[in-house]
């Protein structure tokens, strides 16, 4: 093993060596730089491997042949090695990225870069506070120099501001160092700690000054205006280094220094860190400049880690895993993002649309965003999970709330940005990216995946990257170059095979969901054969969603459940984002979903009392005082997915604007994830009271109101897909209501809805999507009379709406029948009235759907259109067949589930004798109904045909009213504002209170951000004020504590 000192000596030696090379040998000088950085990385890497695999113990490196505290020593443990590696690698990649610039600037610039990297490593390695000061100053000077590399003249101002602030910082630091030396008689951190120097005389104050100096290097809000300016103006490759390496080094320095100060200071640091995290994320919301935004994000992430550093004692043994996970994810992602920004010509966020020209870069961008947001399978995901659990274990609820709020804000602006990149901006002509830079970015992205693997291995949970389902989904990233039909076939085959293999392991409930997800998903994929070309990005996203769903239903522990939840959320987000106009809706979807997911995480953590590996079954014995809160958190989390009223505003846009075959996936299948969650919740926790209020009753109300308002809103939509989307809100409300009734039949009804909703909503979305494809519009009043042109689509819609409205003899009636039987034993009657009201409302929108599209007057511009594309019709016909079959023999699916549910409730089940299904109150014989209805219908039809067999088909306008003949379909087609009188009666219920509320919340955050960011005036002197003020305020607060 090469001693760690040579990480430093290599950097320094190479820097000096560069001076000896002739000025003209710039290329060679660059090679020397790269070689030195590579060597430094290799040394760090060898140590990392030694620590990881050879059981290597932490080593102290002595200088001067004298043992500490009399000479400076370095220390190398796992953390130091890993962070040094991070620093060196980001230096190496940045140097590679900066090749052109460095060669132009010459060897001196390269030397500065080398020394910067060396200095960051020094900050990490040294155990001596004055030596720390030296390395900090070295990093200050080299950063000051590197900022000058930027082509942006404004960088000069930024660099100077930095120097002003660092002068103040260095004054504080030196004073701290010398008085600490005086108090402890040494400069060595370990000896100072042992001597409790911070507790002797002025040592406490000295420690405070030193601490503030190192904390200042971590750029806490608000003493960080300079850092933002640097991020904005400096060369992106440098910003990458600055964010990844300098931040890492500063954090480690804080960690190192903090141990000297005793128990007073960690809470202070935690407070500073978390304040920075939340504040920077709020401020980030109103940023429009990409690099500055990244700056805010950097500050936020570093703030979070700073918070974790301060909470070291609270998080206990997981400290390194958590802090390290967030930190390396941040370092890799932020460096990657800055490198990416160097490939984008303009600084508007939407200018990143140029990345669309290169799938590799887009993949990298997605990876980086996921890394930053902490989505699975990346380190931040594992780290956040452990962090929240560790905090919950100590009842730090406020901190959990703060962290989750900050994370949600960050996700908001990052996802918004990703949406811009994918959807905004005109289609540009092709752009050539430098291969070298793309390679650097790709390396970072792959590094991120590698880290995800490592963290998964370290996590103590199952590594997500070992999950077959997820791997299969990720495989599509690799296959993405193949034609769509090949991938489609692979997807269908894969999902069917997966179902076949997993089939024996499912219990009846899982089986129902698995059939819908895997087989149902495969059925919808049939429509995918319609697509020509490669359909880039579609299959990885869709398969990611399905993988998440498949993992969800078999999850045993809260961790697996949550991981699966996040995976399916991400997949579906990408899927929804594909729609033409879907960017804002996809954003609101992901924000709501992540908010819900965070509620879940908090709920799980609360339930387990902070134990991170916790069986879902364990939810049934949650401590009584926590139980109601767990229930509320989990229920809210799940209800964001089922789009219960109040949390529903994301759904209409997301479902309506999605692609034709995506809408059925996200509506018919994805929503079931929320229902599955609610099933799980109620199965384990059951009835729970909070302050004497029965929470399942609250759920009943929410379900009922969702059903009513969802249906009511659907009635007034002009857009066919929106209508279907709102109707999903209503349908999910019904299902929620059924679950919340907490009786046998209620659950059975919910399950019936699970199946039925999948079938008819998928079918309707496909039909409507097919029609929209042909007519070029989704607005129903612009269609009409399509029945003769698109008969198969019409049949699908017809069967769909009969099933959905619950009219016998189709399967929807089964749901209604079970519903009536279920409410007979419900304890709580009032919300049932609302359900009664909302039931018939469904007829309104369903009739409108079929009438305004297929009946009425055909428009002139549609006279030549043909039936919807073959492959879109095929799955619809499958669904029609299924619906008819399911109507006759619902027992096939429901019988086993009925028996399965029986274990949760005493009595109240159905009996399945012969063809008649009997409940304690009534009976239902699907086959008889079908036969009787069919027979009557056939007889009457025959009678009519006998009488009217010669009926003559007349032309479209062969109708007469008010003594004139209509001649324009537009004026004759009664379609727009179809239920005008109804609006007069019920319009007051439709005021978008939820939208106003959420808009208000969003507006408030943006308003705060817009106002608060004016704090950063841009004046270097003011920043020095901030710095000093920050120190004083922290001092006052700490003294007050």
């Amino acid at each position, binding site marked *: 093993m090469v001693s760690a000192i040579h990480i430093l*000596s290599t950097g320094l030696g190479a820097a000096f060596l560069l001076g000896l090379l002739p000025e003209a040998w710039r290329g060679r000088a660059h090679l020397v730089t790269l070689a030195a950085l590579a060597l430094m990385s290799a040394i760090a890497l060898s140590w990392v491997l030694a620590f990881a695999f050879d059981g290597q113990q932490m080593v102290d490196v002595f200088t001067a042949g004298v043992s500490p505290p009399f000479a400076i020593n370095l220390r190398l443990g796992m953390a130091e090695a890993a962070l040094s590696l991070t620093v060196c690698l980001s230096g190496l990649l940045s140097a590679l990225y900066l090749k052109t610039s460095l060669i132009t600037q010459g060897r001196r610039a390269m030397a500065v870069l080398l020394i910067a990297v060396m200095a960051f490593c020094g900050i990490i390695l040294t155990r001596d506070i004055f030596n720390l000061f*030296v390395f900090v100053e070295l990093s200050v000077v080299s950063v000051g*120099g590197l900022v000058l590399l930027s082509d942006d003249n404004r960088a000069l101002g930024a660099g100077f501001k930095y120097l002003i602030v660092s002068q103040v910082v260095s004054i504080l630091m030196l004073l701290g160092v010398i008085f600490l030396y005086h108090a402890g008689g040494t400069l060595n951190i370990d000896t100072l700690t042992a001597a409790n120097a911070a507790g002797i005389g002025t040592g406490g104050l000295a420690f405070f000054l030193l601490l503030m100096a190192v904390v200042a290097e971590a750029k806490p809000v608000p003493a960080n205006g300079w850092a933002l300016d640097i991020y904005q103006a400096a060369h992106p490759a440098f910003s990458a280094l600055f964010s990844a390496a300098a931040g890492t080094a500063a954090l480690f320095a804080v960690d190192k220094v903090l141990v000297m100060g005793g128990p007073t200071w960690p809470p202070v640091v935690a407070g500073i860190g978390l304040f920075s995290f939340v504040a920077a994320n709020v401020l980030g919301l109103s940023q429009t400049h990409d690099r500055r935004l990244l700056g805010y994000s950097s500050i936020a992430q570093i703030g979070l880690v700073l918070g974790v550093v301060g909470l070291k004692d609270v998080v206990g043994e997981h400290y390194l895993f958590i802090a390290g996970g967030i930190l390396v994810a941040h370092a890799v992602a932020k460096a990657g993002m800055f490198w990416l920004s160097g490939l984008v010509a303009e600084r508007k966020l939407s200018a990143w649309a140029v990345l669309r020209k290169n799938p590799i870069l887009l993949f990298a961008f997605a990876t980086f965003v996921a890394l930053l947001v902490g989505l699975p399978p990346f380190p931040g995901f594992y780290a956040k999970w452990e962090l929240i659990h560790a905090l919950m274990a100590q009842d730090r609820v406020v901190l959990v709330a703060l962290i989750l709020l900050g994370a949600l804000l960050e996700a908001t602006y990052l996802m918004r940005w990703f949406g811009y990149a994918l959807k905004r901006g005109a289609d540009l002509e092709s752009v050539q990216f430098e291969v070298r830079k793309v390679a650097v970015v790709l390396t970072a992205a792959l590094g991120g995946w590698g880290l995800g693997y490592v963290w998964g291995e370290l996590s103590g949970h199952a590594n997500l990257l070992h999950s077959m389902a997820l791997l299969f989904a990720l495989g599509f990233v690799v296959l993405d170059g193949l034609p769509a039909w090949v991938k489609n076939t692979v997807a269908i085959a894969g999902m069917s095979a997966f179902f076949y293999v997993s089939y024996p392991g499912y219990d009846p409930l899982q089986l129902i969901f698995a059939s819908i997800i895997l087989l149902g998903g495969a059925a919808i994929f049939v429509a995918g054969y319609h697509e020509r070309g490669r359909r880039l990005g579609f299959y990885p996203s869709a398969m990611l969603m399905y993988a998440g769903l498949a993992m969800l239903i078999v999850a045993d522990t809260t961790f697996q459940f949550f991981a699966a939840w996040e995976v399916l959320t991400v997949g579906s987000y990408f899927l929804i984002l594909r729609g033409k106009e879907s960017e804002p809706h996809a954003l609101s979807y992901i924000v709501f979903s992540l908010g819900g997911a965070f509620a879940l995480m908090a709920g799980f953590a609360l339930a387990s009392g902070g134990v991170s590996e916790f069986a879902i079954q364990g939810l049934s014995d949650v401590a009584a005082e926590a139980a109601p809160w767990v229930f509320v958190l989990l229920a809210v989390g799940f209800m964001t997915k089922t789009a219960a009223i109040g949390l529903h505003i994301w759904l209409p846009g997301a479902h309506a604007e999605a692609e034709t075959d995506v809408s059925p996936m996200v509506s018919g299948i994805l929503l079931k994830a929320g229902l599955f969650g609610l099933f799980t919740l109620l199965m384990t926790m059951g009835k729970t009271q909070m302050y004497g209020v029965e929470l399942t009753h609250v759920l009943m109300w929410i379900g009922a109101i969702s059903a009513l308002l969802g249906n009511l809103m659907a009635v007034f939509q002009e857009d066919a897909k929106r209508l279907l989307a709102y109707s999903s809100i209503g349908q999910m409300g019904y299902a929620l209501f059924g679950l919340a009734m907490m009786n046998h039949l209620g659950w059975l009804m919910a399950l019936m809805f699970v199946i039925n909703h999948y079938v008819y909503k998928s079918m309707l979305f496909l039909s409507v999507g097919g029609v929209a494809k042909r007519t070029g519009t989704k607005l129903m009043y612009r269609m009409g009379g399509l029945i003769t042109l698109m008969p198969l689509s019409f049949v699908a819609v017809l069967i769909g709406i009969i099933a959905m409205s619950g009219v016998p003899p189709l399967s929807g009636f089964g749901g209604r029948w079970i519903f009536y039987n279920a409410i007979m034993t419900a304890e709580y009657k009032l919300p049932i009235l609302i359900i009664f009201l909302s039931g018939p409302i469904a007829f309104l929108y369903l009739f409108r759907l079929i009438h305004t599209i297929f009946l009425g007057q055909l428009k002139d511009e549609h006279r030549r259109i043909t039936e919807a594309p073959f492959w879109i019709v095929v799955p619809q016909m499958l669904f029609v067949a299924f619906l008819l079959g399911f109507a006759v023999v619902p027992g096939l699916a429901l019988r086993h589930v009925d028996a399965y549910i029986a274990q949760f409730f005493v009595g109240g089940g159905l009996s399945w004798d012969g063809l008649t299904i009997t409940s304690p109150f009534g009976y239902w014989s699907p086959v008889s109904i079908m036969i009787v209805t069919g027979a009557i219908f056939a007889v009457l039809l025959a009678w009519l045909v006998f009488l009217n067999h010669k009926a003559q088909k007349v032309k479209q306008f062969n109708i007469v009213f008010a003594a004139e003949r209509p001649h324009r379909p537009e004026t004759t087609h009664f379609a727009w504002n179809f239920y005008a009188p109804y609006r007069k009666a019920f319009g007051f219920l439709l005021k978008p209170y939820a939208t106003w509320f959420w808009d208000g919340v969003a507006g408030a955050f943006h308003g705060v951000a817009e106002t608060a960011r004016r704090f950063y005036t841009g004046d270097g002197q003011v920043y020095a004020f901030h710095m000093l003020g920050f120190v004083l305020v922290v001092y006052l607060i700490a003294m007050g504590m």
Partner: protein
Amino acid sequence: MVKKAIALALILGLGLIFAALLLGYAPDAALNETAAYYATRTADEIGAQNIVTAIIVTYRGLDTLGEVTVLFLTAAIVGLVLSRTRAGDNAPRLSDLPPPGELLEIGTKLLVPLILLFGAYVFINGHLTPGGGFQGGAILASAILLMLLTDPLRRSSHRLISRIESSAGLFYVVIGVLGAALAGGFLDNRILPLGEFGALFSAGAIPVIYALIGLKVGAEFSSMMVSLSETEDE
């Protein structure tokens, strides 16, 4: 006005901290552990008479290496910054400037070698007497300053300066590495024999290191001055 008031308030706040430090400060009656160690062990371990030098060059050698690097960095950056603006310069001619005067010219010729010698003396004896590489280096640089005053247009060889600077630095690092390889640790001065306590060639590698530092610091200061003076020409 408001700004000054705020500044004053901040300074007052800072003053409170300072006051606390000042009032809480009690001078030590005896050397603390670290200092006592240096006082008693330097002679044996390092073989340098000047304890401060022993600390600077050996015990805290890493600091000093960093310090030298700061200077190196600054010199490099100043060069970088100023060379950027200098790009495409049109060098002024000698005739544009007033002559420096006979006194200065002759004084320079007389003094420069002496100053250089003195500087070398200071850094070579750094382990014995007060002084050392930095002081010596600064003295060396003053000779260059004198030369620049005499002839502002003298194009001192950047190349030479930078050669000296870089090779001194490189050797410094090499010695450090040798210390790690041959003796107890990085920058251990005992790669050379400690010699007789108090002699010129004693204290192991300290004189060598100090000489390198002296050269390096001299070169760096010179390079900064040269860079600055050249920009001033325009």
